[in-house]
């Protein structure tokens, strides 16, 4: 009996102390962690919305009893962007669709005229080098100096092709050979976002 007690005690004690430590660290990092997650999203939203945007708000229901519910249309979350004067500049839609391997989460910024401003892939699981042809905007830095496009948003021909097309009728962008499925995933996500945007606009 005594050794069983010892087992319980030692394992319990290790767990106790360990968990206590974890609880502590959890408390400390909870704030920063949430902030970091939010910052990532915000950064993406800032990119897709017009550059003047200073404030971004998640579009929520305004009915009294459903006050804080997020408006979700076809799984798409909508965010409004405002400038410093409080004027609305555009809407960013967060939508995802299935690509080559798993969902591709995209952010689509649409201005007040219903024109697509910018498309950004926020999260995906596509094959590096293949699927990433249509998802990633990566700055090319060279150790030989002469860094191209060191500032501004790195280009991606596939994603940039959406820019300027109308949300009511998004452009049919040509697929990139070798990444057809990823491309389709992005296209579907953009289409979903536009669809949600149109539905939202017509509802309001």
């Amino acid at each position, binding site marked *: 009996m005594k050794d069983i007690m*010892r087992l319980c005690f*030692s394992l319990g004690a*290790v767990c106790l102390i360990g968990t206590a*430590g974890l609880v502590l660290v959890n408390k400390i990092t909870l704030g920063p962690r949430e902030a970091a*997650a939010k910052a990532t999203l915000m950064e993406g939203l800032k990119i897709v919305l017009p550059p003047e945007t200073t404030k971004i708000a998640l579009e929520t229901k305004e009915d009294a009893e459903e006050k804080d519910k997020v408006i979700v249309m076809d799984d798409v979350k909508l965010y409004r962007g405002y400038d410093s004067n409080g004027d609305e500049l555009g809407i960013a839609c967060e939508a995802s669709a299935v690509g080559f391997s798993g969902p591709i989460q995209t952010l689509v910024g649409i201005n007040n005229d219903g024109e697509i401003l910018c498309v950004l892939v926020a999260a995906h699981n596509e094959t*590096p080098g293949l699927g990433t042809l249509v998802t990633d905007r990566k700055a090319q*830095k060279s150790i030989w100096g002469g860094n191209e496009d060191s500032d501004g948003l790195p280009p991606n021909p596939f994603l940039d092709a959406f820019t300027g097309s109308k949300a009511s009728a998004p452009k049919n962008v040509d697929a990139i050979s070798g990444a057809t499925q990823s491309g389709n995933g992005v296209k579907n996500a953009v289409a979903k976002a536009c669809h949600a945007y149109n539905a939202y606009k017509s509802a309001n």
Partner: protein
Amino acid sequence: MSVLKEFTKGIWKENPVLVLMLGMCPTLAVSTSAKNALGMGIATTFVLAGSNVVISWVRKFIPSNVRIPCYIVVIAVFVTIVEMLMGAYAPAELNKTLGIYIPLIVVNCIVLGRAEAFASKNGAFASMLDGLGMGLGFTLALMALGGVREFLSAGTLFEYVVVPGWPDFLLFKLPAGAFIVLATFLAIMNYRRIRKAEREGTSYTPPEMDCSHCHICK
């Protein structure tokens, strides 16, 4: 002198990846680029050193039947701490790529292996040095692997273009490429040892691969 040895042995002579063949999963999975490798290496080193110290403190009080659960809880605590810290303060991109592999540091054979093989038999300071050395060796091996893989697949290093116009060579980003690059590393090491043995007039047979180094299931 001997203190130094505890530290340096992990870097080359008992390198956990290239010699002891421990912790293969993160080694292969997270070495797609030099940057990822560096991040993983640092995280693992932190866990290794921390858990080694704690385990060498508590080793006397732990009955042998619950040894492994206890050690692993200690390790898990450190891992969770790393996870939280990274979530809070590390760049988002790094967080995403290391993703699932951070919790898996818990079962990284290196950590439990060193706990069993070293920390459970030595004092706290020596254990910490051992952990740091092993972690450093792990990081270096991982970075070498990640660097080669990144370079071969895209012609870049730490995302800097080294050879402009290098064709995309996807193979090396995939698991298959990871296996093959590591195999080549080991072959080169063997080749050097064989040559050295030949010069010294002795013979060298590459070790059998078994998991006996980790000492967990003796």
